[in-house]
C-alpha cells in the first residue's frame, strides 16, 4: 500500500524551475532516501511534501487524501482546511536544525502538540512521551532544556517529538548535517531502529553509506528531476545514468 504518492510535481521560484515533473511513491513500512547534488531540489521537494512550500502543479496524495486541487489553468492550489489538517496528522518532520522550543523542557516539547492538537489527555501524553524518550535513549533528560543537551541529543528529542504525534510517515531533512561527525552515529542508530520497526520514512541525506544501508528505495535527483530511482543496490551500486555515476564517483572520491 502506498502511503504517499507524488505525481508530476512542478515548482519554480520566480524564473528558476526547481522541480520538474517529479513522480514517485512511498510504500508503507519502507524507507526512501533522496540523494543528489547541492541545488538539485531535494529540500524543496521535502518542503512541498510537508506543506512548508506550495507546488505550482502536480499532485501529492497521502492515503486517499489529495493535498492539492487542480486549477483550470493546469496549476494547483491547496485543498480545504479539513483535508490539510488531516494530512498534517499523517506526517512528522525532523529538521536539520532540530527546531526544538528552547523555552520548554524536553517533556513539554514532546507533549505540547499531542495535548493541544490531538486532544490527548496530558497524563497519557506524558506516558507515551516517556516510552519515546526511552526509545531514543534520553529517559534521564525529561526535565532538561534544549540548551542543556548536545546536538545529537537535541536531534533525538526532535525525533521523539515528531513520533509523539504518531505519524504514518516521518520525514528527515538532512538530520545529521548540523551535527559534529562523531554525533551523527547516534542519530543514524535511532533511524535504523525505527526502520527495523517498519516505520515509514523519507530521508533527505548526504550520508551515502547510510542511505545505501537503510533504504528500500533511493531517489537520485539532479537539476530538479528524478534521474534514477529504485533499490539502492541498483541505483547506487550499478547506476545506469551518467549523472548518477558522476555524482556517486565524486562522493566516493572525497
Amino acid at each position, binding site marked *: 500500500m502506498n502511503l504517499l504518492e507524488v505525481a508530476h510535481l512542478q515548482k519554480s521560484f520566480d524564473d528558476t524551475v526547481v522541480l520538474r515533473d517529479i513522480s514517485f511513491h512511498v510504500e508503507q513500512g519502507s524507507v526512501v532516501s533522496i540523494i543528489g547534488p547541492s541545488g538539485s531540489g531535494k529540500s524543496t521537494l521535502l518542503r512541498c511534501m*510537508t*506543506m*512548508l512550500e506550495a507546488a505550482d502543479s502536480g499532485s501529492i496524495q497521502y492515503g486517499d487524501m489529495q493535498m492539492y486541487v487542480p486549477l483550470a489553468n493546469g496549476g494547483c492550489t491547496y485543498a480545504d482546511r479539513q483535508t490539510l*489538517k488531516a494530512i*498534517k*496528522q499523517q*506526517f*512528522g*518532520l525532523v*529538521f536539520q*536544525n532540530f*527546531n*526544538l*522550543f*528552547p*523555552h520548554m523542557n524536553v517533556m513539554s516539547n514532546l507533549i*505540547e*502538540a499531542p495535548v*493541544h*492538537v*490531538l486532544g490527548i489527555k496530558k497524563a497519557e501524553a506524558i506516558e507515551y512521551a516517556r516510552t519515546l524518550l526511552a526509545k531514543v535513549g534520553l529517559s534521564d533528560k525529561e526535565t532538561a*532544556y*534544549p*540548551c542543556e543537551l548536545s546536538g545529537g541529543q537535541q536531534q533525538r528529542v526532535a525525533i521523539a*517529538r515528531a513520533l509523539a*504525534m504518531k505519524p504514518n510517515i516521518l520525514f528527515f531533512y538532512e538530520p545529521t548535517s548540523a551535527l559534529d561527525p562523531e554525533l551523527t552515529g547516534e542519530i543514524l542508530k535511532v533511524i535504523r531502529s525505527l526502520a527495523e520497526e517498519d516505520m515509514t520514512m523519507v530521508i533527505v541525506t548526504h550520508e551515502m553509506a547510510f542511505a545505501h544501508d537503510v533504504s528500500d528505495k533511493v531517489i537520485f535527483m539532479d537539476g530538479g528531476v528524478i534521474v534514477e530511482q529504485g533499490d539502492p543496490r541498483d541505483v547506487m551500486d550499478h547506476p545506469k545514468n551518467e549523472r548518477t555515476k558522476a555524482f556517486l564517483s565524486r562522493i566516493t572520491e572525497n
Partner: protein
Amino acid sequence: MEQFFEYIGKMLSLMGEGIGNSLLIFAMTLLFSLPLGLFVSFGRMSKYKIVSMLVKFYISVMRGTPLMLQIIVIYFCPYYLFGVSVAEDARFPIILAFVLNYAAYFAEIYRGGIESISKGQYEAAGVLGLSKPRTFMRIVLPQVIKRILPSVTNEIITLVKDTSLAQILLTEEMFSLAKIIAAKETSIAPLLVAGLFYYIFNLLIAFVMGRVEKKLNYYQ
C-alpha cells in the same frame, strides 16, 4: 542626619499629591501601552501595505517629535478639531499622550523581538499542527519577552523620568510641585529631593526587572 530625613519627609508630604499623580501617569501608561504596543507592532508588520505604512507613519511621528508637544496637542485637540472645551481634568489627555507615545516605542521593540525568532520555530510549530494564535502565544511570545526584556526595562526607566513632562499641564505633579516649593524657598533642595525620588524609584525598577530577567535565564 536626622534633620536631613526630616526635611525629606516634609518635602515628600508637600509633594504628596504630585507623587500620586506621577505614579498614576506611570502606572496607567504601562498598563495600556504595553499591550497596545503589541497591536501596533502587528499593524507595523501587517501584510497589507496600507496598514503597515500608516502605522509606520504613526510611529515615526511619535518617535520624531517631543512628547511634551504631543501632550499639548492632544490636550487642545478636542478644542481645535471639534470646538469643544478642553478636558477639565488634564490627567486624562496627559495619560492618553503618554500611552500613544510609549505604545510606539514598545511596538518597535516588540517588532524587533518578533522578527528575531527564527523561521524554524514557526515551521516546527506548523508541522506539528499548532494553530497560528497558539504558535504565537505559546512558542513565539515567551521567547520574544525574554529577548526584549532589557530594552523594555530601559523604556520603563525613561518613562519614570518622562512623567515629569506632565508639568506642562499639571501643577499637581511631583516635578511641578518641587519647582514651586524651590521657588518659594529660593533653594534647589526640593528639586534634589524630587530627583532622589526618581532615582530610588528607578533603582527599584532595575532591581525588579533584573529579578525577572534572572528568572527567565533558565534557558539559552
